[in-house]
């Protein structure tokens, strides 16, 4: 499934590594549904003027977030991006705190200072989203370096987009991870576009994973809409990382159903492209699979209803929460050490 160098095989999944119980399978779908409904809710609230700033929706890409995070331990880490709601939800972020953050409320996980692009929760190994394309990749190495030094067998899943794979930080960070055998899984979420620019126009390689050859690390391509395939490929990369054998560049081919940000009509898409990808909706695909495995449709409908309800409650929590007080604005610039206190005066 993996291969060293530039030649990449499509990981097929659904067998082999880390077989899952039915309950575990169901829980994957549950998380995907949570993400889907979370994203739908925030988009709706945004368009209703309830959410400030701007938003990048990950609808269509849920299988990447869930497949990757399902193969992580609780004490593993994720480094996320501007399109990061799915990643952090899948890693276990609290729905309420996260929704409140996106609403800019005091109860938000970042006290209303970060917003959609800066969700973080270190207690859950969520190192943070990032507003700078490619900005998180070098940081992932540092977390992995600490993990390696402490020998607790932790790994870091570092998400970034196809567009980010053209940033200098991608190159520097993959090279460093390679020579230091850092326990990072570099997850290239290839949704075919960096903003309005298709992959074909921003790089000449067919696969981002082809770039693994430049660091002599394994490059793997996987169907990013197949949650099990993603999970299996990630598991293998994680095991490699935990064995001390270094990083993997794992490319997940996927698609975002909406524009670059909520409100972008996506006029740059090829005709018929969206329709074709909608047929490969990761939630529908997996639902079909679960039904084939004998999970009753009613159970799956219930799951969905639960996700809707959880998200509704989160919206309510966020909506009802207070805005942060002005006196908190100058907190958190510095740790209030003696020097830190004096530095904001």
């Amino acid at each position, binding site marked *: 499934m993996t291969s060293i160098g530039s030649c990449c095989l499509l990981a097929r999944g659904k067998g082999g590594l880390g077989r899952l119980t039915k309950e575990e399978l169901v829980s994957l779908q549950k998380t995907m549904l949570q993400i889907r409904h979370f994203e739908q809710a925030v988009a709706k609230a945004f368009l209703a003027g309830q959410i*400030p*700033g*701007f938003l990048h929706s990950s609808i269509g890409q849920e299988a990447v977030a869930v497949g990757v995070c399902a193969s992580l331990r609780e004490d593993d880490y994720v480094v996320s991006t501007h399109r990061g709601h799915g990643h952090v939800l899948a890693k276990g972020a609290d729905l309420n705190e996260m929704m409140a*953050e996106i609403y*800019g*409320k005091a109860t938000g996980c*970042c006290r*209303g*200072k*970060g*917003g959609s*692009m*800066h969700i973080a929760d270190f207690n859950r190994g969520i190192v943070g989203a*990032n*507003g*700078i*394309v*490619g*900005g998180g990749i070098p940081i992932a190495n540092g977390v992995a370096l600490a993990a390696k030094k402490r020998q607790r067998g932790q790994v870091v899943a570092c998400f970034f987009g196809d*567009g*980010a794979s*053209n*940033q*200098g*930080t991608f190159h520097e960070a993959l090279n460093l991870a390679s020579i230091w055998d850092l326990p990072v899984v570099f997850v290239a979420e290839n949704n075919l576009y*960096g*903003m*309005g*620019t298709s992959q074909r*126009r*921003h*790089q000449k390689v067919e696969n981002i994973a082809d770039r693994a050859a430049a660091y002599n690390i394994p490059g793997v391509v996987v169907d990013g809409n197949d949650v099990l395939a993603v999970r299996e490929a990630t598991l293998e990369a994680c095991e490699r990382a935990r064995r001390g054998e270094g990083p993997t560049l794992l490319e997940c081919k996927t698609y975002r159903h909406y524009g670059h940000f909520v409100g972008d009509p996506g*006029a*740059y898409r090829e005709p018929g492209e969206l329709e074709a990808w909608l047929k490969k909706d990761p939630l529908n695909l997996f639902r079909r699979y679960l039904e084939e495995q004998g999970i009753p449709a009613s159970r799956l409908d219930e799951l969905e209803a639960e996700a809707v309800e959880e998200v509704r409650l989160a919206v309510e929590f966020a909506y009802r929460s207070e*805005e*942060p007080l*002005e006196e*908190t*604005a*100058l907190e958190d*610039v510095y740790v209030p050490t003696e020097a830190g206190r004096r*530095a*904001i005066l």
Partner: protein
Amino acid sequence: MMREITCREAVREALREELQRDEDIFLIGEDIGFYGGTNKVTQGLWQEFGSERIMDTPISEAAIIGAALGAAAVGMRPVAEIMFIDFIGVCMDQIANQVAKLRYMTGGKVTIPLTIRAPGGAGRSAAAQHSQSLEAWLIHTPGLLVAMPSTPYDAKGLLKAAIREDNPVVFIENKMLYNTKGPVPEGEYVIPLGKADIKREGGDVTLVATSRMVYFALEAAAKLADEGIECEVVDPRTLVPLDKETILESVAKTGRLVVVHEAPERGGFGAELAAVVGNEGFDYLDAPIERVCSKNAPIPFSPRLERFITPQVEDIMAAVRTTVLG
């Protein structure tokens, strides 16, 4: 009556007219083509001028600035767009060590007629990495010129000057002003770099404000007039070169200076202005120079906190009262 257009349209018009005028000019940046730019400033230009003149790049800011620099060094006249000024961190070496210094290091062997456009500013809850005002880094980099217009009229005239200028110019737009309208004549005009504009006359205190803060200063001035305080609002329009003469003349008249900008106070442009006026205008000053700037913090996401961190009209009014009333 003169037609009114937005800053976005003014910038676009300047770009279009210059592209038509000079074949050596081309635009380079991320999604500035078919997409029209994330702020829609370049919308329609790709359709008009094609891919050779309006060049989409990958998300690679250092490569963008380097490509623009290399082309400029051999005689082209590129206009590069950095989508948000917050991203100059990823290409700061190309800007500060290459663009700004290549002419000097080569003893004048090369001319860099390069314009870098980038929007800055808070106000959209875009949080810490999409809301900054980073002009202070640039004015501290010898070799660069720095323009920071406020009105559509100034934006158009200064951008045309910047593009025609033989020195590299960083042209800082403001995302909150893209929809702001103002009178712009139909015909061709160019505003020379380095001339401040007095946006309102007044005898009690000089308010030097940049970019969006010009509007805040004008609003404060209008309100203060009701209190009997007459503010002179000066918009330097370019920070390098800085029109010290106009500013000093105003301070000579008013005896008081308040500087207003959106970047954090510590080490901002206001410090430079205070140092210049405090020195060259020492004898004019009847009161300490006040600075009204963002507090020394990153820009927070929450609209309430963002408002609190960045300067507001009331802050300007309070500073004016302090300097006038003591």
